[in-house]
């Protein structure tokens, strides 16, 4: 049980190049599951490997339970890691794989067997203990990798995209299992994924990374409701938030010839900027009747309809400005088809407004 702190930690692979992880500041509270999420190449794995001791920490420091681990080798950090491709030892059986970290720590045979049995029981692996990894399915291998991590009873779990090799259904199932197990064991966990759905569903807190820099570190609802910049706003949520660069008008901004009023605090914060990036989530559009007054609704033409059963997403372009496309959430049976006109209105309460240049949230 431990708190993990990244203190301005950086990793520079090639001297002179842009750091892969740039001054990361992050505190994982004891027992929390923190998800590092970001697009491919954003430095998530590098950050995790720095914590694991598989990459050096070129600047700043990393502390586990108050101890600076910059110069501590991997094996003395009291961590366990689950790798993306599981990294099971092919010549060893499931039981031997799970017992390996214990054996390396000199635990005696009886106790090893006992711990492996317990973990196998918990993960439903008991009947596979004598098999080699090659004779297991993807999901079973994944569980063996988990088992090898939990028998150690480490201070911190590290997981690098542990679900990315599973099919969609297994992924959802395993996701819940991992979250449940982590809750039960209450071991601090750092979990890396590129999938924002995984991040939002599993994380006690989520850290969004881009280009090696931490963008925002917050709980999932906070991240969704108050993204700190346009990048986070566009990254979190599926389908992504509509981010539109709109010109200012007297009391707000104009979209498709229609004036959208901005709340007082936002327009104050916007000051004299003549352009703003306005974010509207798909569910924050209100579908209006097509014969509503043209000055209060935005007219658009549907390009694609995705019907998901309980809801549907309409991808449309504006009638006035065909270069601008929007995504609108509608009811399950929306009754609209390709080429149909629709009329929409953004919910003024739910607007996200960002500086058009820097992408910073206003206010």
């Amino acid at each position, binding site marked *: 049980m431990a708190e993990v702190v990244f203190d301005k930690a950086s990793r520079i692979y090639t001297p002179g190049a842009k750091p892969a992880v740039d001054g990361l500041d992050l505190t994982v509270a004891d027992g929390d599951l923190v998800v590092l999420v970001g697009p491919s190449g954003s430095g998530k794995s590098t950050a995790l490997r720095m914590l694991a001791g598989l990459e050096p920490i070129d600047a700043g420091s990393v502390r586990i339970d108050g101890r600076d681990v910059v110069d501590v080798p991997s094996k003395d950090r009291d961590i*366990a*890691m689950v790798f993306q*491709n599981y990294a099971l030892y092919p010549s060893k059986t499931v039981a031997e794989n799970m017992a*390996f970290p214990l054996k390396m720590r000199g635990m005696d045979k009886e106790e090893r067997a006992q711990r492996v049995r317990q973990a196998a029981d918990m993960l439903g692996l008991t009947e596979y203990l004598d098999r080699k990894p*090659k004779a297991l399915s993807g999901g079973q291998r994944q569980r063996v990798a988990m088992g090898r991590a939990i028998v150690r009873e480490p201070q911190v779990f590290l997981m690098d995209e542990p679900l990315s090799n599973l099919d969609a259904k297994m992924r959802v199932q395993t996701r819940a299992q991992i979250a449940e197990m982590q809750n039960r064991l209450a071991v601090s966990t750092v979990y890396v994924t590129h999938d924002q759905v995984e991040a939002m569903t599993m994380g006690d807190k989520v850290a969004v990374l881009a280009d090696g820099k931490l963008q925002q570190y917050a709980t999932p609802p906070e991240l969704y409701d108050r993204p700190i910049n346009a990048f986070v706003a566009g990254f979190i949520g599926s389908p992504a938030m509509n981010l539109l660069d709109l010109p200012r008008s007297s009391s707000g901004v104009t979209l498709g010839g229609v004036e959208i009023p901005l709340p007082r605090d936002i327009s104050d914060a916007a000051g004299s900027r003549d352009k703003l990036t306005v974010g509207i989530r798909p569910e924050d559009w209100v579908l209006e009747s097509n014969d509503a007054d043209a000055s209060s609704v935005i007219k658009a033409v549907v390009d694609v309809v995705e019907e998901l059963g309980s809801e549907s997403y309409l991808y449309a372009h504006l009638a006035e400005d065909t270069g601008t496309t929007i995504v609108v959430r509608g009811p399950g049976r929306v009754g609209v088809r390709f080429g149909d006109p629709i009329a929409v209105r953004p919910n003024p309460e739910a607007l996200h407004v960002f500086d058009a240049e820097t992408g910073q949230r206003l206010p």
Partner: protein
Amino acid sequence: MTATLEERPAASPETGGKPMIDRAEGWRRRAPLLPALIFTIIVTQIPFILTLWYSLQSWNLVRPGSQEFVGFANYLDVFADSQFRQVALNTVIMTLGSVLIAVVLGLLLALLLNRPFFGRGIVRTLLITPFLITPVAAALLWKTVLLDPTLGLINFVLTPFGGSGTEWISNYPLASVMAALIWQWTPFMMLLLLAGLQSMPTDQLEAARVDGASAWSTFRELTLPHLRRFIELGVVLGTIYLVNIFDQVYMMTQGGPGVASANLPFYIYQRAFLGFDIGQSAAMGVVVVILTLIAANFALRLIFKSFSGEQEAA
């Protein structure tokens, strides 16, 4: 897939059973391959059958007209020949000893080359060179440049330690030949094992680091099992080649003194072309072929098993 499966039965009533290619067409299709097949048969099987035939004759080239059918008498003589048994033992020692030592040395060098250091490319090239040298030249090099009692480098190096003047080749003939063989075959094993080491998945090694394995445990518990099939392949290929080695024995010791450093190919050569005893040497050849077939069969089954089974776990 399903489409083809369904089409076949539908088409069969008309063609009458399965799609037939008539006999002439079959031969026409095979014809281009025939010359190679015939050539292979002529080159490998006819000499073998002739050897079988000779092995049943008493036939010494020195006594013309002495050729007569003697049944299995030659074989009885072969097994009664204590020199033959000595030579067979030499062959086993020379082959397995050289191969195993070369594998161990090759493994050490491969482990060295598998880590980055300054000048690795040059070192690797230099280490490979012995394998590229013609066996005869290599044997000469060992016999004269290295092992010669008065001019050899080895005695030169040993002089300060009071070890000069050793007659390496006369005193340790088998070991001298083996030294030359090991020198030539270590690079081969090294390359093979280096390829094996480089195919080791890095995430397994990283997992071992996180799991707390020391360098030695990682090597013993993960690297060696991973290398097993590469080692087996090296042993089998090395054995197949070295069991037939001739150049080094011929150049360095002529099998001597006595038959102390002779192996089977050299001994058979001696019997046939120096002793002119065709019947005896043919019988020996047949015995060697049979023993080699048995050994090779086991060895090949071993590597096929380890290359098709095991492995391929993610």
